[in-house]
Structure formats: structure tokens, C-alpha cells
């Protein structure tokens, strides 16, 4: 069984800009729940984009399930929530429209089948938006919109879930719900999770592995082993 994700000796810079990541080695096995943290501009989003094959490393290699990330084929198995996702539509879209778009990679052509509709319903249920499914996305609060995007990422039943700061603007209660949801996906379905955040509030207790990124990987291990030195005041709440 190949690793879910492998970065080996990865350097990266945007165009001619300064080096954003240097000498990054990161191996993630299928079924791991990895939290990625670090300062603003530390390279967290860039790391995810490399992992997803959206950027090409200047040095080193990036593999997804043993294949080069740039040409990885089984892409419906990836669920991705980008940082600050918005919808690129001018037309009004309902919550359900958004989540259905997450199912499109599985069934891009023709009509939705019953299992597609069930997957969409299930994803809505999981994020607690079933009742709001017919509402217009723009009529929801920021946190509710964020949950709709999480449901979109879940709709294709990914085996690798990549979430870039999914809890921005999400209240504590919904964060707890998200933490519990990720825990269930991870425990029951063996989904591999890469979770970027500044704040691990309610997710912290489920995380097995924490990776701190500040141009390099400056820490990689169980959160309990994090040297006090690295404790950022913003993470230090219980």
C-alpha cells in the first residue's frame, strides 16, 4: 500500500520570487489525521497546493498514492476546501447546488442518480445544513457558507480530505461539530485528513500528528511533544 502523500526534498518558490518552502520532507500514510500549523505566510497553503498537484516543486518530488501529484489520476478521491473559498457564480446558487457541484466529478455527465442524491443529502446532513439546503448560499452566514463548502468537499466520498483553515468564521459549536465529524470520517471510514489551521480548538484532541511549517518543517510529531518554545500564544488556549 503506497503512502497517501509523499513530499521528498521539496523546494518551492512562486516564479522568480523568494523561496517559500525549503527542503520539505513529509510522508503521510493512508488513514492519518494530520494538522498543519504555522505563522501567516509560513507556506501552509503552498504545501497543500503542492500536495494536490496544483503547483510544481522547483526541486524534489511530490507523490499522491505513489503517482506524481501533477498527473495523479484518481482525483475524485480527493476532497479539497481551499482557504477563503467563494463561489465563482453570478447566478444565485442554493446550498444544494454547491454540494451537488462537489458530486460532479463523480458524475459529470448526464443526470444525477439516486446514489449521487444520497451522497449529497448525507454530506448536507453531516455538516448540519439539511434544513437549509434550499436556501440561497448568499443568504447564509459566513460560517454556514463555510459548512456548505465542507459538505461540497465531502460529497464525492473522498479518501483524502484536504482542508485549508475550514473553521475561519465558524462558531465554537460548529467547530465542535466539525471536529467530531472529522473524527468520525477518520475513525469509521479511514479517511486521510490534512487540516490546516491557526486554531485547533475542538479538533486538537483528535489530531495524532502536528506539522509546523515556517518555510521548513520545524516540528513534526504528536501535539503532546510540541516543545513549549513553539507554543504560539494564539494556540495556547485549552
Amino acid at each position, binding site marked *: 500500500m503506497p503512502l497517501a502523500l509523499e513530499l521528498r526534498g521539496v523546494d518551492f518558490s512562486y516564479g522568480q520570487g523568494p523561496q517559500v518552502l525549503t527542503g520539505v520532507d513529509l510522508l503521510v500514510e493512508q488513514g492519518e489525521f494530520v494538522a498543519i500549523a504555522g505563522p501567516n505566510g509560513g507556506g501552509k497553503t503552498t504545501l497543500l497546493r503542492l500536495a494536490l498537484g496544483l503547483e510544481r516543486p522547483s526541486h524534489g518530488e511530490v507523490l499522491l498514492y505513489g503517482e506524481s501529484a501533477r498527473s495523479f*489520476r484518481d*482525483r475524485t478521491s480527493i476532497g*479539497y476546501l481551499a482557504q477563503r473559498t467563494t463561489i*465563482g457564480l453570478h447566478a444565485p446558487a442554493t446550498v444544494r*447546488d454547491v454540494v*451537488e*457541484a462537489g458530486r460532479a466529478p463523480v458524475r*459529470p455527465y448526464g443526470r444525477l442518480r439516486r446514489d449521487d442524491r444520497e451522497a449529497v443529502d448525507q454530506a448536507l446532513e453531516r455538516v448540519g445544513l439539511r434544513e437549509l439546503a*434550499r436556501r440561497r448560499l448568499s443568504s447564509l452566514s459566513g460560517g454556514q457558507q463555510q459548512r456548505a463548502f465542507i459538505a461540497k468537499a465531502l460529497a464525492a466520498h473522498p479518501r483524502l480530505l484536504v482542508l485549508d483553515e475550514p473553521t475561519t468564521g465558524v462558531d465554537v459549536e460548529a467547530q465542535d461539530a466539525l471536529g467530531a465529524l472529522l473524527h468520525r470520517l477518520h475513525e469509521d471510514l479511514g479517511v486521510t485528513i490534512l487540516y490546516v489551521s491557526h486554531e485547533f480548538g475542538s479538533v486538537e484532541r483528535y489530531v495524532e500528528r502536528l506539522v509546523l511549517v515556517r518555510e521548513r518543517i520545524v516540528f513534526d510529531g504528536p501535539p503532546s511533544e510540541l516543545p513549549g518554545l513553539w507554543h504560539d500564544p494564539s494556540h495556547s488556549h485549552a
Partner: protein
Amino acid sequence: MLDLEFMRLAFAAGAIVGVLAPAVGFFLVQREMSLIGDGIGHVAFAGVAVGYLIGVSPVWTALGAAIVGAAGIEWLRARRKAAGDQALAVVFYTGIAGGVVLISAAGALNANLFAYLFGSILTVTRGDLAVIAVLGLGALAVVAVLLRGLIAVALDEEGARVAGLPVAMLNGLVSMLAALTIGVSMRIVGILLIAALMVLPVIAAQRVAWSVRSTMGISILFGLGSVLAGLTVSYYGNLPPGGTIVLTGTAVFLVASLVEAVAR
């Protein structure tokens, strides 16, 4: 009015155009490429000129030129050689300038040309209708089959790319469909006005719709309604159909905006 063969042909062709233009235009509006139809239309104008010059039916040369223009815009945009609007500007001006030069070279600055620019209800022949029906219904079928993928790309292009949808192919396809729509609609609405029929019904529908699908459906209703009403006015008022169709579309847009304002 419908006793007349040419009006029956115009209405039949117009109905197809009225449905097709907003169905394709929907995706242009979502991609903030509302004016791409104009860019392609201007290139199609150069195509008409080429047709006159080499003695081939301008419909075909215009369609060919529209496809080349659409591919050019998409190529410039996708390779980030130029921002979307700049890519458009280059193609737009080259098309109209090339068209004017070629037209005068062909000695075809005449009333017939006016029909290509602004549409005519007298020009649709049975042969034209057959071409419009085959290409138009074919394009609609493509949109219907690929609808979910196209919506997913419009909604979140990067997300669609990560999830493995063929984003470049689908974007290219939208441009090709736009070119085809312009080629097909040119006889009725005219090269300079067809782009409006791709855009106005969609932005009107967005004001009153409640979901992606309802936007699509209402756009098509508005487009069809504008064409049928516009053709009728054009017949009784002896006016060019392109202008009356587009003005009807503008009226629909104003009413939809009013309805939206009242509903809030």
C-alpha cells in the same frame, strides 16, 4: 403573419436561437466573459467579408472565423498571455478592422451586408433552417449532457481541477459553443447584436431566479420570449429583427430588475 413562408422559417430558426443563445451565454456570464460574444462576432464579421471575397456563402466562412476567434481568445486567456479583457480587445479590433478592409476589397459595402450585421427576417431559407436546426440542437444537446460538469467548473474552477474534471476541455468547449451560437444566430439577430441575446436574458434571470437551474430555465424562457416578441414587432414595424429582439431583451431585463427591487 405566419401564413408567410419566410416568417415561419424566421420563427422556427428564431426559436432555436432564442433557446440556444442564453443556454450558452449562461456560462459566459458566470466566467465574466460577457463580452466574448462580441469579440467572436467581430471576427465573424471578417469571416463574412472573406466569404464575399472568395465567393463562398458568408455563413460558413463566418462560422469558421468565429471558431478561430474563439480559439484565439481562449488560447490567449488560458496561457495568461493577456488578461481576459485584453485578449478580447486584441481579437475584437483585429476582427472589425480586418472585416472592413476585406469587405471594401470585395466591393460588398451594400444592403446585403446590413442583413448580416443586424439580422433580417427575409434571409432565412429552408437550407439555413436545416443548418440552424442541426447545429443548434446539437449544441443544446452538448450543453444538456455536460451541464453538471460545466456548472461545477463555473462554480469553483480550482476545486473542479483538483477533483479531476477536464477543466481546460470544458472551458474550450464553452468558447466553441459560443462561436457556434454566433454562427447559427447571425442570420436572424445579426453579428453585431447576437452577443446581447447571449447575455441579457441571463443577467435578467439572475435577478429573479432562486437557484442555478432556475436561472438557466428562466434565461431560456426570457431568450425565447425576446426572440418571438422581437420578430413580431420587427414584422409589423418593418424594423431589423436584431434590434427589436435585443431591445425586447433590454425591456425584460428592466422589468426583472424592477421585480427584484420590489421583492426585496
